[in-house]
C-alpha cells in the first residue's frame, strides 16, 4: 500500500515501469472524479431550472462544499496517517466560542483572539495526538472523549461568562482589524460588481443593496479551501514528509524500523486537523458575526464521509487530498442540491445516506476493477 515510501534496488519489481494510462487509472481520486461527474449530471437533469446553477445558487453550494473541504483536508491527512479525529465538530464550536469570548466579552483585539485560539486549538490537537501515541489507545476513543469535553467546555464557558449560548457582536469588533478579513472577507468584489453592472449576473432589486450584484465576490472560505487542498496535495505527494504520512498509516511498525518518526508524524497530523477545524470556525464566526455553543455538531462525520467518498481507506495508508476535496464537493452539492430539487425535508437524511452509500460502493468497485485487487 505504501509503495511510495519504499526505496529499493532498481531491478526490484516494486519499481517496474507502468504504462502511463494505467498509472492515471489507479489514482485513489478516480472514484471521486466519476462521482462528481455523476452528481453534476444528475442535478443538472433534475434541478436545472430551480436556480441551482444561477450565480447565487452556485455560490451557495460552493461555500458549503468549501466548508466540507477545509475539514476534509485535515481529516484526510490524519486518516492516511492511520488515525481518526472525532473531536473536529466540537473543536469548531470551541474555537468559535473562544474567539467570540476573547474579542467581544474580554475586549481583546480580534487578531489576538484569533491567534490565541489557533494556538489553543493546535495545542489541544497535539495533546490528542500525544495521548493516542503514548497510551496506544485507539484514536477513536481518545477523540470521542474530546468530542464531549470540548462541547461541554464550550457551553459552560459561554453560560458562565455571559449567561448566553450565542455570543454576537463579533462583526462590530472585527471592523478594521487586519487579520479578520483573511478569514471573513471577500475577494474580486470589483469584478463581480462590474459583471453586475453589465447585467451578466443578477443584482439586488430593492433596499440599501439595490444595484449590487447578488454574488458580491469570492468568500475567503473558498480561497482557504483551495489553498489547503493545494498545500495538502503537495505535502502528501511531493515531499519526504508525505511519504512518512503514508508509511505511518500503512504499517507503523515497519515504518519505525525504516527510521520514520511515526509518533511525531501522527501528532503533527492531529495538530493539522485542529488547525483546519480552527480555520473553519474562524471563517464562520467572521462571516456570521456570532459564535454559538452548538456550532459544528456532527461535522466530524461529514469530514470523514467526504474523505471516504474521496477514496481514502478507513484503515489508513491510502488516500488522496484531491479525492477528499472531490468528496467534499460531492457532499456539498448533494446536500444543497436536494433542497433545490425540492425533496421533502423529512426524507432528506434518507437520500443523503443512500447517495453516500452509493458513492462509496461505486468507488470501491471502480478501484477493485482497475487495480485488480480482490
Amino acid at each position, binding site marked *: 500500500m505504501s509503495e511510495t515510501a519504499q526505496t529499493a534496488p532498481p531491478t526490484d519489481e516494486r519499481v517496474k515501469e507502468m504504462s502511463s494510462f494505467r498509472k492515471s487509472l489507479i489514482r485513489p481520486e478516480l472514484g471521486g472524479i*466519476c462521482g462528481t461527474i*455523476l452528481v453534476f449530471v*444528475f442535478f443538472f437533469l*433534475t434541478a436545472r431550472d*430551480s*436556480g*441551482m446553477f*444561477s450565480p*447565487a*445558487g452556485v*455560490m*451557495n*453550494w460552493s461555500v*458549503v462544499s468549501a466548508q466540507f473541504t477545509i475539514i476534509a483536508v485535515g481529516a484526510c491527512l490524519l486518516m492516511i496517517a492511520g488515525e481518526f479525529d472525532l473531536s473536529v465538530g466540537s473543536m469548531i464550536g470551541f474555537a468559535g466560542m473562544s474567539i467570540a469570548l476573547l474579542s467581544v466579552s474580554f475586549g481583546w483585539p480580534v487578531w489576538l483572539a484569533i491567534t490565541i485560539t489557533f494556538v489553543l486549538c493546535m495545542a489541544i490537537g497535539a495533546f490528542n495526538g500525544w495521548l493516542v501515541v503514548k497510551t496506544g489507545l485507539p484514536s477513536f476513543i481518545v477523540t470521542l472523549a474530546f468530542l464531549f469535553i470540548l462541547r461541554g467546555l464550550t*457551553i459552560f464557558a459561554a*453560560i458562565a461568562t455571559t*449567561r*448566553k*449560548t*450565542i455570543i*454576537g457582536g*463579533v462583526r462590530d469588533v472585527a471592523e478594521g482589524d487586519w487579520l479578520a478579513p483573511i478569514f471573513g472577507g471577500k475577494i474580486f468584489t470589483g469584478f463581480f460588481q462590474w459583471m453586475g453592472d453589465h447585467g451578466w449576473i*443578477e443584482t*439586488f*432589486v*430593492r*433596499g*440599501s*443593496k*439595490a444595484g449590487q450584484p*447578488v454574488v458580491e465576490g469570492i468568500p475567503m472560505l473558498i480561497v482557504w479551501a483551495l489553498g489547503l487542498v493545494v498545500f495538502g496535495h503537495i505535502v502528501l505527494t511531493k515531499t519526504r514528509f508525505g511519504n512518512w504520512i503514508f508509511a505511518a498509516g500503512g504499517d507503523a511498525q515497519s515504518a519505525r524500523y525504516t527510521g520514520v518518526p511515526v509518533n511525531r508524524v501522527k501528532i503533527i497530523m492531529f495538530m493539522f486537523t485542529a488547525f483546519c477545524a480552527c480555520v473553519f470556525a474562524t471563517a*464562520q464566526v467572521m462571516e*456570521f*458575526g*456570532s459564535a*454559538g*455553543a*452548538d*456550532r*459544528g*455538531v*456532527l461535522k466530524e462525520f461529514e469530514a470523514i464521509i467526504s474523505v471516504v467518498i474521496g477514496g481514502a481507506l478507513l484503515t489508513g495508508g491510502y488516500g488522496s487530498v484531491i479525492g477528499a476535496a472531490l468528496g467534499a464537493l460531492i457532499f456539498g452539492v448533494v446536500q444543497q442540491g436536494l*433542497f*433545490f*430539487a*425540492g*425533496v*421533502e*425535508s*423529512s*426524507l*432528506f*437524511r434518507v*437520500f443523503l445516506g*443512500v447517495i453516500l452509500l*452509493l458513492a462509496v460502493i*461505486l468507488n470501491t*468497485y*471502480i478501484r477493485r*476493477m482497475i487495480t485488480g485487487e480482490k
Partner: protein
Amino acid sequence: MNRIIKNLALAATVVAAPLAFTAGTAQAEGEKYILVSHAPDSDSWWNTIKNGIALAGDQMGVEVEYRNPPSGDLADMARIIQQAAASKPNGIITTLSDFDVLSGPISDAVAQGINVIIMNSGSPEQAREVGALMYVGQPEYDAGYAAGLRASGDGVGSFLCVNHYISSPSSTERCQGFADGLGVDLGNQMIDSGQDPAEIKNKVLAYLSANPGTDAILTLGPTSADPTLAALDENGLAGDIYFGTFDLGTEIVKGIKAGIINWGIDQQPFLQAYLPVIILANYDRYGVLPGNNINSGPGFVTAEGLTLVEKWAGEYR
C-alpha cells in the same frame, strides 16, 4: 468496463426514481412559498407547523415547502435561507432565532425582491430591521414573564426550568422571563437537559432530589415536558409540584387533564405557519396586507375547555 456502466446506470435510477416522485407531488397554481425553521429533525413540535403550511397551501392552491437544518446548526440554517432565495420563490417564511447569523441572508433575500415574513422566533423590531413584511409569533420573554406572574400569584417562589434547546437564545429568554415574573434570580435554576428523553428524565430526577425545596417546574415544550412527566410519575411528585409548560402536545394535554400540569402556554404554532402563507398569497395576488404584526399567543390552556385542544393536539394544536 461494461460492469461500471451498468453500475452507474443502476445507481442513477435508484436515486432518480424516488426523487422524481417527491419533486412532482407538491405543485399548484404557481406561487411558491418556503418555510425555513431552526429546529433539528428530532423536534416533534414542528409537525404542527408542517401541517399548518400544508393546509394553507391546499386551501390557497399554492406550493409550499418546509426546510430545516437537520442537526439544528444555525449556520447551516443561514445557508438554507441563501439556497431558498436562490431558488426564486414568491415568499420566504422564516424564524429569526439568531439575529447575527440570519439577518444577512434574510435581508439579502428581501433585496432580491422576495417577500419575507418572520414567524415564531425573533421580535417585531428585528423583523422590521431585516425588511420583513411582518412578524407572526409570540414574544418569548413576555410570554415567560406572564407565566411567571401567574405562578407568583399561585404562591411559587422557586422553580426548575428544563431547557432542552439551550443553544437557542429564545429558550433562555423564556426561563429568564419566568424568573423575572416571579421576581427571583434565574441563577442555577435552569438546566441544560439535552434532547434525549431518558437523559432529560434523569436530569430532572437528579435536580429535584438535590433541591427538594423546588416549588415549580417549567418545561419549554413536549420534548422536555413528556420526560418530565415520567420523572414526576417516578418520584411521586406528580400533582404535588406546581408544573407549567410552554406549548402543547398529546402527553401535555393528558397531563393538564389529569391535574399534573397546571397550565400550558399555547403559542398556537398553527397560526404561525398557516397565516403567513395566506397573507403572502393574498399579498401577491391582490396586494392586500394586514397593517400590523400578529401575536399568535400566549394563551393559557388549563383543565377547562380542553375538548378541541385534545382532539387536535400534536396535529393542529
